[in-house]
C-alpha cells in the first residue's frame, strides 16, 4: 500500500478503492466487503477510460468525478500523479455527501504527494 493511501479506507462511508494506471491495470486495491466477480476489473477499466477523458478536458484543473448510482452508492475518480484513484462508497447512505467525502480524500492525497 502506498504510504498513507490506506487511510482512505478509514473514511466514513468508503467501501473500496483502487489505484489504476492509464490502461486500467490495478496497482493497488483495498475492499472492505466483497465485490461481484469481475466487477473490479470492469470498474478499473472504466476508471482509466473516464479518467483519461477528464484529463483531456483539463489536464491540470481536473479535481475529481463522481458517478451516482441508483442504489445511492458513488464511485469517485481522482487524478493521482500519473495514475488514477477510484473510490467506491458503501450502500445505504440516503443523501450521499459527495463534497465532504471528496474533501477528505483530497486531504489524504495531498499528504501523499508531499
Amino acid at each position, binding site marked *: 500500500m502506498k504510504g498513507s493511501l490506506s487511510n482512505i479506507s478509514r473514511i466514513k462511508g468508503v467501501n473500496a478503492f483502487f489505484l489504476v494506471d492509464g490502461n486500467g491495470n490495478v496497482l493497488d486495491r483495498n475492499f472492505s466487503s466483497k465485490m461481484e466477480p469481475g*466487477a473490479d476489473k*470492469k*470498474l478499473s*477499466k*472504466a476508471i482509466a*477510460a*473516464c479518467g483519461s*477523458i*477528464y484529463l*483531456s*478536458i*483539463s489536464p491540470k*484543473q*481536473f*479535481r*475529481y*468525478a*463522481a*458517478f*451516482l*448510482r*441508483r*442504489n445511492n452508492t458513488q*464511485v469517485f475518480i481522482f487524478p493521482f500523479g500519473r495514475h488514477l484513484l477510484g473510490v467506491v462508497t458503501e450502500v445505504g447512505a440516503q443523501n450521499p455527501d*459527495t*463534497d465532504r467525502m*471528496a474533501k477528505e480524500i483530497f486531504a489524504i492525497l495531498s499528504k501523499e504527494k508531499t
Partner: protein
Amino acid sequence: MIVFCEDCGDRNQVCPAHIVKGRAVFICHACGYHNDYPLPLLQQKKQQENTVDHWFQVLDRDPQMMGGFIYDISKGITVCRMPDLLLPEDIHSLGSRLAQSLEQGLLAMPDIRSMTVLISDKYFFVAREKKGQYLVLIALTPNLPEPFCRFFMQYTHKKEWQI
C-alpha cells in the same frame, strides 16, 4: 402532466406533445375518447414553466449557476446557455467528452443515475435522458441550487415533464 378525460373522467398522463396551443389533445387510455379541450390558464402557465426552454431561460438568474447545455450525439448542441467567452466548438467538444465519459461509466455500471465532474472550481452535472442525449448543468456549488436540482433530477429519472 395529468389531464382528465371529458367523457369518462379518467386520469391520463400526457407528455408536452399533447398540449397544443393551450389545448389538451389526447385519446383517453380508458375509454378511447378523443379529447380536445382548452386547459385552464394556470395549468398552461405551469406547463410552460416546466419545459427545458424555460429552465434554460432562467439559468443566469441564479448567481451560483454558470450555465448549461444539452448535447445530442447526432445533432450537436441543441439548447445552450453558456458564458459568451466560450466558442461553440469548445462547448461541443466539452459536451462530446462528458458524454463519452458517462457512456464509459455506464458500460461498467449500467445503473448510473448521474455524473458530477469538478474542474477548477466548477461543478459539471451530467445526466443522460436517452441514449445520445445529455444534459449538462454547470454550477459553482457542489450541490445544484433549487429549483435546478429538481429539474436535473427529473432528467436523471427519465420522467416525462410533470406538473
